[in-house]
């Protein structure tokens, strides 16, 4: 199985279909000349609800990390009440190892804008805010350039082809973040957008009911929305002809893995980069076929499937299928953003765990006690282990800490803690021997000095 033609990277030269050296900004004219905005035109001829139904039929799942079915999310919106409704586009892309949205923003921002316009029409959203990672200076500029073009061609603004929505001419704004990972979490993003500290909100209410400025709001990732245009243009069946589909034994109502996906590969491979393939491609295929294999002299040891929040795949999981079912099958958290980090035999897994813990300790918003203190504590323990001061007890403690905090067990508000927790836990479990070798076999923490010795 392999993608027969590029979809998201149709206009962005990418192996095997093109040479990255040929990449350039795709302006409005280039975009429309190559079939762009056809999905929007088609959607505008349909009733809003019919558009939602197509996206639902396509079983398009969120590409931002959680994999929530987009059509279903759209249908959670309450009926229109005449008031305002918002779309917020998650372009925060701050999950380490993830750089797929950047490719779209850099070269083909109109693909995103088309998806935005379609979802505004389908969900009756009058204003779109694109919340872009603060460090994406260049991308914010390109995006603004594309938005200006779109305004000029009446995609947005007065006399927009979308017509009045909630009595407003549709608007689209870029809002730049200030450099916090937590502002990528959807409700942290909303708080930040409202000018507050990016502290994730407690749910319910869900954003679809009370989101930005306490009004119904849809939040989707850049890639998710970029996928909507092609789906509308070519239909749900076309979309579902790609991807792994529904795994065996999975009930037909459960979300499945359809369509193409961007994979951002980094690490010890010959040719790191963003590649488009069907969901369900094997890790080994991705590395060997697209990335030119491991670096010379490198042997595969571990890989992070999709941003460090997802945990690791071990040496025996080289053939793991990269789809939404990866979590259960290969004991990691999930596919996440499909930002794959590949590690070779020289990688020190203790250092990897320590570095990942450092990230989460640094980025925890500090709201929930278990996450604020737990991430910091794990980082301290791992640093000590790396420096040679660890004990076997520390390993047990790490497993206990990482097993108890997170939104999944219910002890925290958002999923950042789950990310920290799965990363540490899976690395520890899959590379236990490496950790054991690093710590002293001491079980008691009573030092000689404390015991009355010197």
């Amino acid at each position, binding site marked *: 199985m392999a993608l027969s033609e590029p979809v998201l990277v149709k206009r962005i030269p990418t192996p095997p279909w093109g040479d990255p050296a040929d990449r350039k900004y795709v302006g409005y004219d280039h975009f429309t000349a190559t079939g762009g905005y056809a999905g929007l035109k088609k959607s505008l001829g349909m009733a809003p609800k019919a558009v939602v139904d197509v996206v639902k039929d396509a079983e398009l799942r969120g590409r931002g990390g959680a994999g929530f079915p987009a059509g279903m999310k759209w249908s959670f919106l309450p009926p229109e009440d005449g008031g305002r409704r918002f779309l917020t586009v998650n372009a925060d892309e701050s999950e380490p190892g993830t750089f797929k949205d950047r490719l779209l923003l850099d070269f083909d921002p109109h693909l995103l804008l088309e998806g935005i316009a379609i979802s505004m029409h389908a969900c009756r959203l009058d204003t779109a805010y694109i919340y872009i990672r603060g460090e994406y200076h260049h991308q914010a500029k390109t995006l603004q350039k594309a938005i200006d073009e779109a305004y000029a061609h009446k995609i947005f603004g007065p006399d927009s082809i979308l017509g009045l929505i909630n009595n407003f001419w549709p608007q689209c704004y870029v809002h730049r973040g200030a450099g916090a990972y937590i502002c990528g979490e959807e409700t942290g993003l909303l708080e930040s957008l409202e000018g507050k500290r990016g502290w994730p909100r407690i749910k319910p209410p869900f954003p679809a009911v009370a989101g930005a400025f306490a009004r119904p709001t849809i939040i989707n990732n850049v890639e998710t929305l970029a996928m909507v245009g092609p789906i509308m243009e070519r239909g749900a069946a076309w979309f579902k002809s790609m991807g792994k589909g529904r795994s065996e034994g999975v009930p037909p109502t459960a979300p499945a893995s359809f369509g193409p996906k961007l994979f951002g590969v980094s690490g010890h491979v010959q040719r790191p980069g963003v590649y488009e393939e069907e969901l369900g491609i094997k890790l080994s295929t991705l590395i060997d076929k697209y990335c030119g294999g491991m670096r010379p002299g490198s042997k595969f040891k571990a890989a992070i499937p999709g941003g460090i929040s997802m945990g690791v795949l071990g040496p025996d999981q080289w053939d793991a299928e990269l789809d939404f079912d990866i979590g259960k099958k290969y004991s990691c958290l999930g596919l996440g953003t499909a930002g794959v980090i590949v590690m070779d035999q020289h990688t020190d897994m203790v250092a990897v765990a320590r570095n990942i813990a450092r990230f989460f300790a640094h980025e925890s918003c500090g*709201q929930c006690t278990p996450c604020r203190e737990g*991430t910091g504590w794990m980082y301290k323990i791992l640093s000590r282990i790396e420096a040679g001061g660890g004990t076997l007890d520390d390993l047990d403690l790490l497993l206990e800490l990482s097993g108890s905090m997170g939104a999944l067990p219910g002890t*925290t508000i958002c999923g950042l803690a789950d990310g920290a927790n799965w990363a540490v836990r899976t690395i520890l479990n899959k590379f236990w021997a490496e950790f054991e070798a690093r710590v002293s076999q001491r079980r008691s923490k009573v030092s000689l000095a404390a015991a009355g010795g010197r």
Partner: protein
Amino acid sequence: MPSITIDGRQCNYEGKKMILQVAQENGVEIPHYCYHPGLSIVASCRICLAEVAQPNPRNGNKLELIPKLMPTCQTPVADGMVVYTRSPKAIANQKAVMEYLLINHPLDCPVCDQAGECHLQDYSYKYGRAESRFVDDKIKQPKKDIGPHVLLYADRCIMCSRCVRFTKEVSGTAELGVFGRGNREQIDVFPGRPLNNELSGNVVDICPVGALLDKDFLFTQRVWFLKATPSIDGVTASGDHIRIDHNDGLVYRIKPRTNADGNKWWISDEIRYGWKFVHAQERLRVPQRQQLGGMVECDWKTAYREALAGLRKAVKEKGPGSLAVMVSPMLASEEAYLLGKAVRALDEQAILAVGPVPVVGEDKTFPGGYTIYAEKSPNARGVRQALELVGGGAESVLDFPVFIKSLEDKQSKTAAMILTGGYPTPAGESKELVKAVGKRFMVTLDVLPNALASKANVLLPGATWVEKSGSFVNVKGKTQGFMQAIGVLEGARTEGQIALDLLAEMGASEPERYDVATVRERMGGMWVSGVAMPSAAESAVRAEMSYVEL
């Protein structure tokens, strides 16, 4: 009535509530830090988590356990819900949260003011683990002076964000914020913007730990030595419910008492620190009389005789209507009644007047609903009501401006009077009054020296509201009783006692001790049944202190 079951106990409830609220209403303890009934819910401390089973209407109302731990402060109740706060999973979380909260905490209870009334201490005993497994270096945070009344010990903070929400939602001033991220984050003020709103002291009350401390109370007393007496605001007309914390005859601090249909959980700084005059050096301690052109100290007996002689002389010379009594709005209603009775025993037509009612600025209501009243005395209405009871009707009592006018009138028959003060600042004694009184015979009851007191023929040292019992009628007309917290300053007497002494001295009654219940009996009507008193629980000394089994 719908009900839920918490740890096997049936808890009834009405309306839309959270599990934690229903638990509290039913006397079931669920530990909590960030939840405060007067603030928005953030569900961030995570100590209140419990396992919850809910009837599923789609499954024949069969009880189904929610797989996640649920924050009880944020989970709405549903009829038939079953909550487990002592299940192994819930207990494990409580222990974990307690351990987390302490890993970067300095554990400096021996030098912390909060010790003894600290939720971190109490929950450590009840829900924590005996030993921490944290062996690395703690994060050290500074101690900061963040406002005129409040100190922040940042390393004791557990980041419950109550104080931040208070300044956002209740005072509306938003001086406090969270700065930084993760375990390095801190509460702080913005540069050049100190925590100086008129309600700032409340953040100390709601801080569950010793992070925000009151500069005024700092290191003055260990809280377990304090006795608490329920009382009523004695410096403004708010009628706010307060608690006076005192030991060995000294007041150490004033705290708000929860009052659902009044001040809720808050008091203004004015009320919180307004008690300082109680222990002022200058307090009057000995009766004095004019002799040879100066004030000379004397004993009570002499002072009473001298006072009565002067008052009687006036009546004898000028006939009925030559006496007046001016009762300060700082005094209790019961005292006003007795003072009125005493003067009327000497002169049936004596003028009854209410003293000056200080007003500063305008009433100010904060976003959280709390109001600071412009009227800076507790009992203008109560004093009037009590005097009307003596005089018979509204016309029988003069308000201060009318009283001044009557004194200034050339026709004025008034020749001698009893004046009362008791104001925390000399501002209560207006120049107007000094001038209007002129050379008339004057018996003054006051607590602090001032212009009027120095001109008195007889000066009797009175007492402040914390030194006596009585009742005040607040700005909304609510009559509320308060109790004596500390003994009367040595040498001084309550104004109620002075009135009774005068009555005895003039032979109108037997010697008697000032006792509010007896006075209210005599006043009759609503004074017997209509005075709102603190609940039995509030009156019990430090009812909230419990000893923990070790």
